[in-house]
């Protein structure tokens, strides 16, 4: 049984079932109101599921001890405005059980990492939104967690800040950490993530592997002469949408591994192939196809 959360009469998460592999950068995609933030909160023990159970790093999500290995950047990070950047990181490090000696080394390194060293003694009340996001990211990483949840980490960041977040996520993956990323910026997800799932009305409605297996639906545009109707009909083994318009052949196939077979079929059928252009479906196209173009948002 998947995770379910109901607020009064509103179903926030319907039946969520997913597995994240250790060491991967995992993207969690869905439109506004799809239940992404509620799902993350359930995984972190902030929200109690109405039914179902979540396990994080092998332990139930409400287990306090396992949180020593988890970092979390909430959406729209806010904290005590009277703390300085240095004090904030020290405070969160202490909550994570870090020693004073370790924090003396770790905090300056983190401030350097997120580009806030010149602002270490500045109070959070004087921080811009982008600076708050950076210090929020630093507090999520202070104890070098095995699993990091990042909820809209690039929100409020300028292009340099977004690049910084991408670099940090890559560094975290290199370190061996698992990153659970929730973002609306699909181009960022496409560059950063190994795998994504699409969530709609609190249920997983699709997934895509972006790294280890680049296979996926692909659209092909080809310029072909001397091709028979039988040859076009023969393409149905790989595509249900093959259509010839003059010399322009268009088709969509479910897997890039079909491309050599399609090309061989065209040539062996006596066709002269002048152009053969596979066009991988972008994450955005796939997202819109799954979610529907107009959701009235």
């Amino acid at each position, binding site marked *: 049984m998947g995770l379910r959360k109901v607020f009064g009469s509103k179903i926030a998460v319907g039946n969520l079932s997913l597995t994240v592999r250790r060491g991967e950068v995992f993207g969690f995609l869905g439109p506004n109101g799809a239940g992404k933030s509620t799902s993350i909160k359930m995984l972190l023990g*902030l929200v*109690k599921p109405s039914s179902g159970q979540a396990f994080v790093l092998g332990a139930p999500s409400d287990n306090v001890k396992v949180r020593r290995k988890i970092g979390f950047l909430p959406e729209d990070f806010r904290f*005590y405005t*009277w703390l300085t950047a240095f004090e904030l990181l020290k*405070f969160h490090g202490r909550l994570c*059980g870090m020693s004073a000696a370790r924090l003396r080394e770790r905090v300056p390194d983190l401030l350097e990492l997120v580009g806030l060293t010149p602002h270490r003694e500045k109070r959070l009340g004087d921080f811009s939104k982008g600076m708050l996001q950076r210090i929020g990211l630093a507090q999520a990483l202070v104890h070098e967690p095995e699993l990091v949840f990042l909820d809209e980490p690039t929100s409020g960041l300028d292009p340099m800040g977004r690049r910084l977040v991408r670099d940090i996520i890559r560094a975290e993956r290199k370190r061996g950490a698992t990153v659970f990323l929730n973002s609306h910026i699909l181009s960022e997800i496409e560059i950063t993530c190994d795998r994504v799932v699409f969530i709609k009305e609190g249920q997983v409605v699709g997934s895509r592997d972006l790294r280890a297996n680049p296979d996926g639906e692909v659209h092909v545009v080809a310029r072909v002469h001397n091709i028979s109707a039988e040859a076009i009909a023969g393409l149905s083994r790989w595509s249900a949408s093959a259509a010839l318009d003059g010399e322009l052949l268009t088709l969509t196939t479910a897997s890039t591994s079909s491309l050599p077979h399609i090309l061989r079929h065209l040539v062996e059928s006596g066709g002269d192939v002048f152009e053969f252009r596979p066009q991988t479906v972008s994450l955005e196209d796939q997202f819109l196809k799954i979610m529907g173009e107009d959701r009235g948002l």
Partner: protein
Amino acid sequence: MGAWIMAGVTFQEAARRKILWTAVAAGAGFLALFGTGMHFQVKDLASHNVPPLIGHQVQVAMLQVGFYAVDLLAVVMTILTSVDTLSGEISSGTIQAIATKPISRWEVLMGKWLGFAGMIAIYVSAMFGGVSAIGYFIAGVRPHNVERGALLVFLECLLLLTVTFACGTRFSTLANGVIVLGLHGLAFIGGWIEQIGAMTTSPRLVTLGIVSSLIMPSESMWRRAAFEMQSSLTRSIQFTPFSNASAPSPAMVGYATLYLLIVLVVALYNFQERDL
């Protein structure tokens, strides 16, 4: 360990946000005013040749007024400083970054509670000490059982703090403030109704007062404190604005302590169970 870190940051917050220093300044201002008043009173009593026994009772009554003002200041400080601590952090989402750290929710709540309790203890001790010192050095009067009185006022503040925390786990800051001040107002009016009822031998008024004290026993702790700090002579001649006509019994102190513990458990349960 987590609770102590939270207690420490609560103290640090009070100091940084100038809450503590504003309270200290208000307290110091009150003590200066009270000392000046006491000084003039001593001078005027001497110049009007008031009999020593009456003069002494006037000064004791003045001292009681001083402690009453301290009680009001401590109550107001307790509610105003703590009303936003849970509800505010829940509504702003600040609590999320803390509650996902490896500390239990009870540690978060108890840490904050201990931080405020520590500040209130320091405040009540300093203010009771200040009023007692002014009474002794300016007028030569000493309250009876001042330590017991201070402890009872501290218990009253802890009671209000705990109710504020319990409501803060469920309601918004504004609603929380309205509920806690409303409950204390009920206890305050109920206390006076009970005293008036006792003086006018009206059992129904006394019952009404007792019921209001059972709903919220905060004000009855002040009335017990006022009773404890009066000498037997003062009690017998009733020369004080705080009548001992219907002083709350020691059983009421026990009830208030039990009330506090139950409300604290409710606060911990609510905070543990709620979604953040």
